[in-house]
């Protein structure tokens, strides 16, 4: 019988687990520090924002994304390039309004909750993955796009899907966006 496969360290898997487990430990720590769910959510969003403002540079360097002409293209890139690259998943994108500035990312799989079966007791309003909203918001702001990013639905709260809503706040100013960063 040959040596079982798992004896060779699966670095990719260990690394992904490392991020997911560390994130879980962070949420647990914040739940200890803050009594109110809203405060934990706000803090996760704030930390995500900080990460997003720095992550966008890493993303642009790795992905060689070209110029975008619409909010729809930008949302597609977030879902099909950024999420795929960093988390290995591809949320599907829907457009929520006729002005085409409000979109949803539907997460069918969510690696962040791989080890989470349900929200902790007494934490029914916790947006467990709120870091993601902050990251998207921070990254967009660094490319001069203001947006509101929140969870519209959450499987951990009993909804049928997990849905992140992105609402771009200003009309896409083409002239401004063409300017080199």
């Amino acid at each position, binding site marked *: 019988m040959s040596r*079982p496969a798992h004896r060779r360290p699966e670095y990719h898997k260990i690394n992904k687990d490392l*991020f997911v487990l560390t994130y879980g*430990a*962070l949420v647990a720590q914040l739940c200890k520090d803050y009594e109110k769910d809203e405060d934990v959510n706000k803090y996760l969003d704030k930390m995500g924002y900080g990460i997003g403002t720095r992550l966008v540079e*890493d993303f642009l360097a790795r*992905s060689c994304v*070209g110029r975008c002409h619409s909010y729809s293209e930008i949302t597609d890139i977030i879902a099909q390039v950024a999420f795929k*690259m*960093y988390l290995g998943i591809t949320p599907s994108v829907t457009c929520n309004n006729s002005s085409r500035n409000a979109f949803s990312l539907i997460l069918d799989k969510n690696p962040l909750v791989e080890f989470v079966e349900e929200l902790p007791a007494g934490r029914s309003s916790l947006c467990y993955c709120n870091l993601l909203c902050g990251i998207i918001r921070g990254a967009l702001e660094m490319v001069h796009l203001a947006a509101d990013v929140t969870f519209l639905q959450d499987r951990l709260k009993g909804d049928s899907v997990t849905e992140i809503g992105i609402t771009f706040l200003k009309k896409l100013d083409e002239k401004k966006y063409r300017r080199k960063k």
Partner: protein
Amino acid sequence: SSGRCWYHRARGWRMAGAVPFVFLHAEMVAELGARDTDTDPGPGGQKRSLEGTGFRVGQALGEREELDALKFLCKDLWVAVFQKQVDGLCTNHQGTYVLQDNSFPLLIPMALGLQYLEEAPKFLAFTFGLLRGALRTLGFESLVTSSVATLPACKFQVVIRKS
């Protein structure tokens, strides 16, 4: 511009999966560290909190290795030796695992009469050793027991011993 082809998989995609942890860690050092010094002005405060988080994550990663070893037993080892997989695996996440086999092949010849139930342990002893030996090679010390309620179904209880 060409519409659909606005990106391509540059070499930068490799190792991108390692990036989220690095960025999260940096943010944790900045944020948690800043908050810790408010409540615990001692010089070790910030590092203790981060170290505690690291410790918990390390424990969880170690548990994944243990679970992988058990899955090897339930799938690869069982198929190689008994031509079937274990039917169920449970754990209390504290080092105890229960392997459920609804039709354990070494008990099947005995399954004809209930009066043989007290003979069952003799037919399981070899398999106890098999499990302990396999786990030893995989780096785990263990204790194996079993319970047989209805032949030929049985449960093997494996307790991983912390060194």
